[in-house]
């Protein structure tokens, strides 16, 4: 790892200030993506600004149907929160299957969505739940937030502070994990809102990152059942092909994961 200077921020304002004092500074939350990347010398921030101890970025609250998860909340906390399990068990289930227990004790929802790994789990939940990404500067709809492979709408120095969404009437998540890394080879999050509208988001499979699937949405809006998902045509042409699986293989996985997600919802 190249040399770096560590700073611990005490508030969001403090973090922004620390970050802006160097051109090559980066935020670190759980570090479960960033530290391994620095160890491989694929990232070399001159300064690291630690967000993990900022109280205003932590915790889960459910107000009526409105859910808010602080960006520095760990995967472990999301997977075990009683409030969240009551309001949206699908997201707790998703968090419980990220990586392994040690990764879940450190990794955060804010770090995961800021990183927008095309095989990460959370981006699919954000898109399917129609979540809002709250930053230190503005609120961005998930739809506009995830812009491509490892790309987001975040400006330099902008911090994800929290995510908010309305608890769905029904939701489910199923992923086919890569047997070595546990990242999704295909993961599908299905959600039916209180007003009956259906959103389906797919991670791990798209060649341009997480995306919504119009065909699955229409089929499930007409008939919320695993059978309805079976009849949908999943086009392989925009899907990833790599050593783990071909685009055609992933197209089939998307359909199977959609069926499992509906069955779990």
């Amino acid at each position, binding site marked *: *790892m190249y*040399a770096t200077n*560590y700073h611990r921020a005490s508030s969001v304002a403090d973090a922004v200030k620390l970050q802006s004092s160097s051109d090559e500074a980066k935020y670190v939350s759980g570090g*479960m993506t960033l*530290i391994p990347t620095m160890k491989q010398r694929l990232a070399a921030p001159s300064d690291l600004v630690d967000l993990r101890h900022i109280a205003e970025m932590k915790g889960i609250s459910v107000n009526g149907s409105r859910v808010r998860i602080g960006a520095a909340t760990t995967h472990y906390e999301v997977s075990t929160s009683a409030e969240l399990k009551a309001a949206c068990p699908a997201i707790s289930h998703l968090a419980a299957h990220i990586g392994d227990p*040690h990764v879940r*004790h*450190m990794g955060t929802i804010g770090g995961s969505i800021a990183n927008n790994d095309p095989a990460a789990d959370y981006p699919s939940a954000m898109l399917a739940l129609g979540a809002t990404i709250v930053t230190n500067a503005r609120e961005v709809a998930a739809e506009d937030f995830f812009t491509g492979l490892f790309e987001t709408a975040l400006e330099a120095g902008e911090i994800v502070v929290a995510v908010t969404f309305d608890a769905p009437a029904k939701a489910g998540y199923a992923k086919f994990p890569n047997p070595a890394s546990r990242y999704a080879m295909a993961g599908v999050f299905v959600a039916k809102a209180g007003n009956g509208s259906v959103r389906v988001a797919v991670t791990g499979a798209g060649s341009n990152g997480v995306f919504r699937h119009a065909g699955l949405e229409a089929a499930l809006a007409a008939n919320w059942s695993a059978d309805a998902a079976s009849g949908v045509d999943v086009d392989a042409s925009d899907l990833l092909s790599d050593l783990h699986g071909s685009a055609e293989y992933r197209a089939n996985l998307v359909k199977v994961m959609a069926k499992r997600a509906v069955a779990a919802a």
Partner: protein
Amino acid sequence: MAKVAMTVNGRKVSKECEGRTLLVHFLRDTLSLTGTHIGCDTSQCGACVVHMDGKAVKSCSMLAAQAAGAEILTIEGLAANGELHPVQAAFKANHGLQCGFCTPGMVMTAVDMINRYGAKLNEQTVRENLEGNICRCTGYHNIVKAILAAAEDMGAAGRQAAE
């Protein structure tokens, strides 16, 4: 270089280290606590697992500075008064190790899962919670057996103490 202070196995320590120093290097090289192992360069094997503020973490995937102010527990801190911790004793009794390289991480992971699940721990939960720990020797069966035995032991001990 900056001063990093934390509590390791109940003892307060404060040492100079670089910003980039990993917690595992701080433990092994600065504090000479070589029980915590390094088995991979990809954050996947779990040989380096320690507890930070009561939760299992991979000490190879965090900086010592990130742990400043925290309570760290390593494999060296488990045995008390010369007696093996029940999880260590169960690994010995159930032949839960062969070469022993993965064992410190396995034991720390086992203690963490027993803390979280207590008496509710079953074989499937144990296997799921070993997701982040790789063993090249045992084939895992005896590790799972040892963890379940220790969980039962510790549950029994807890019940006895409560009676």
